[in-house]
């Protein structure tokens, strides 16, 4: 890899190569690594026991559990919806397809706070469009678990789709047609041919979605209201504790959120090349052999 990169950058100018490296590393360090390391340092400022003390606080455990629950449900919804939507976008032609594709990116473009406000407008129990009807039937959405899941699902919606769609496009539909002509029905084709082909895109999309869902702050905060700790998620807790000068707690919870994100990305990065590297190496071997 290093040799090909140097070829692209321009052979014969090692000075430029080093300059670029320093710029990139410095940029990433100042923007991501240093602040994250600082969070870690502050989290363990009082030693490991202080850190563990924070974790035994029922308010903290409740917030972490709530965040995980919301993230799990939101990720499951986005998994089903995302894979289905990707298949629809890639494999079928229908009017309004381009508009739909553009609409899917909306959650990335819109501020999460606006998402929260929009959900409140539609679902709140007093003057929302559906809210009063649902509330009459005993279903409360805003200021409770369903609303928080909806807000999180909305915000993380494009992540799986944007991972899966290019892989599906790249894969083409010939393998599916082949499966079909060999007697496989739609479900068998999906399960045995399509799904294995997009497996890694889904894994990556799920990890991103889960990490994003776990850390969602704006939309959830608006929808959660303030039901005395009942609807406080981990990121919201970090903010509250920070403002209440309980910085030790704030940093400890923040550390857990960061650690989770980093660990999950590392796991995926480790899993993925194992699947792809041998294939690539043998593909080049096959090209060399040709027959």
């Amino acid at each position, binding site marked *: 890899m290093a040799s090909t990169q140097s070829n692209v950058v321009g052979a014969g100018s090692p000075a430029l190569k080093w300059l670029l490296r320093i710029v990139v590393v410095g940029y990433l360090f100042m923007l991501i690594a240093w602040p994250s390391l600082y969070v870690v340092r502050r989290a363990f400022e009082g030693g490991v026991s202080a850190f563990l003390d924070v974790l035994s606080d029922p308010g903290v455990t409740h917030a972490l559990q709530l965040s995980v629950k919301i993230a799990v449900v939101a990720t499951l919804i986005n998994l089903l919806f995302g894979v289905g939507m990707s298949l629809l976008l890639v494999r079928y032609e229908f009017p309004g397809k381009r508009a739909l594709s553009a609409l899917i990116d909306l959650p990335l473009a819109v501020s999460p706070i606006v998402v929260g406000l929009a959900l409140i407008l539609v679902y709140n129990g007093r003057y929302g469009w559906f809210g009063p009807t649902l509330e009459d039937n005993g279903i409360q959405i805003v200021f409770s678990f369903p609303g928080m899941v909806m807000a999180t699902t909305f915000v993380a919606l494009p992540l799986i789709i944007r991972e899966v769609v290019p892989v599906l496009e790249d894969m083409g539909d010939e393998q599916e047609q082949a*499966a079909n*002509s060999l007697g*496989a029905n739609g479900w068998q084709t999906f399960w*045995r041919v399509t799904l294995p082909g997009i497996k890694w895109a889904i894994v990556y999309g799920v990890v991103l979605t889960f990490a994003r869902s776990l850390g969602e702050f704006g939309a959830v905060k608006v929808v959660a209201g303030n039901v005395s700790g009942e609807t406080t998620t981990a990121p919201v807790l970090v903010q509250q504790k920070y403002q209440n000068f309980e910085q030790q707690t704030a940093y400890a919870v923040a550390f857990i959120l960061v650690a989770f994100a980093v660990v999950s990305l590392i796991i995926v990065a480790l899993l993925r090349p194992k699947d792809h590297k041998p294939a690539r190496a043998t593909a080049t071997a*096959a090209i060399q052999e040709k027959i």
Partner: protein
Amino acid sequence: MSIDVSGVTKRFGDFVALDDVTVSLPTGQLTALLGPSGGGKSTLLRIIAGLDQADTGTVTIEGREATNLPARKRNVGFVFQHYAVFKHMSVAKNVAFGLEIRKKPKADIQRRVEELLDLVHLSQFRDRMPSQLSGGQRQRMALARALAVEPTVLLLDEPFGALDAKVRKELRDWLRRLHDEVHTTTIFVTHDQEEALEVADEIVVINDGRVEQIGSPDVLYDKPANDFVMRFLGETTDLAGQTVRPHDIEVSMQPGVLGSTAGTVTRILRVGFEVRVTVATEGSGDVLVTMTRTLARNLGVAEGAKVWLTTAKGATTVPVMSAV
């Protein structure tokens, strides 16, 4: 028994891919659908397979009405130009796919897979992944996979189109021998006339969404229905209002032959044993004549020489239809 396509029309937007095509393909034979790119031959194959739907018309496979039958129920084997291998499955798993879908007993599947891998000479690669195979090996695997389900008909869409010339020739010979062994009704699409003439029992020439001619390679070559078929099956030139093959023109260095066309040699190109002579004539424009090196030397053909051209006796000719 046969595969009968009747009155099939298929449009893609404004483009008419197939225009009221009716053709009957006999059982047990190796049939080629031959024609230029975009002529509709692949579309016809995909309609027979059920991968595309005809706008109008019917398809009958071995007496069974198949027009509205989904692809998975037609019991056809389909081989794609770009192999369409299942990338995440081993060679053996690929071949076993159709049998596993049909829920055959494990032992039967294993025996049949071994048989087929043997047939396509891939036994030693059974546990490899498709990415570890060359193009020719992948296509043989795809063929074994299609044959595994004992299809009523085997359909191959430009099966050797993505392979280099040498492998293509090998596989072509191999397909012919395979068909002589297995006898499955086979239809393959090609735009390569040499491939069709060499391999097929029967050739269907398709152009502009219509069937131009159906017949054995000999019939097509000796009695082409029109100048399109003749031009498509090999090199041709026009002499005195007739389309004729360049090697069927006789050259005389003196006038006097009845009905001969006078001209001047403008260019001579030697390719191995063959000499390609371009003659500028008054009535017929530039005429291409090919002859052996020996004949050219004996005649004394040289650039600038005056020559008289006639069509050889018994040569296949077709009237030029340039006005149409």
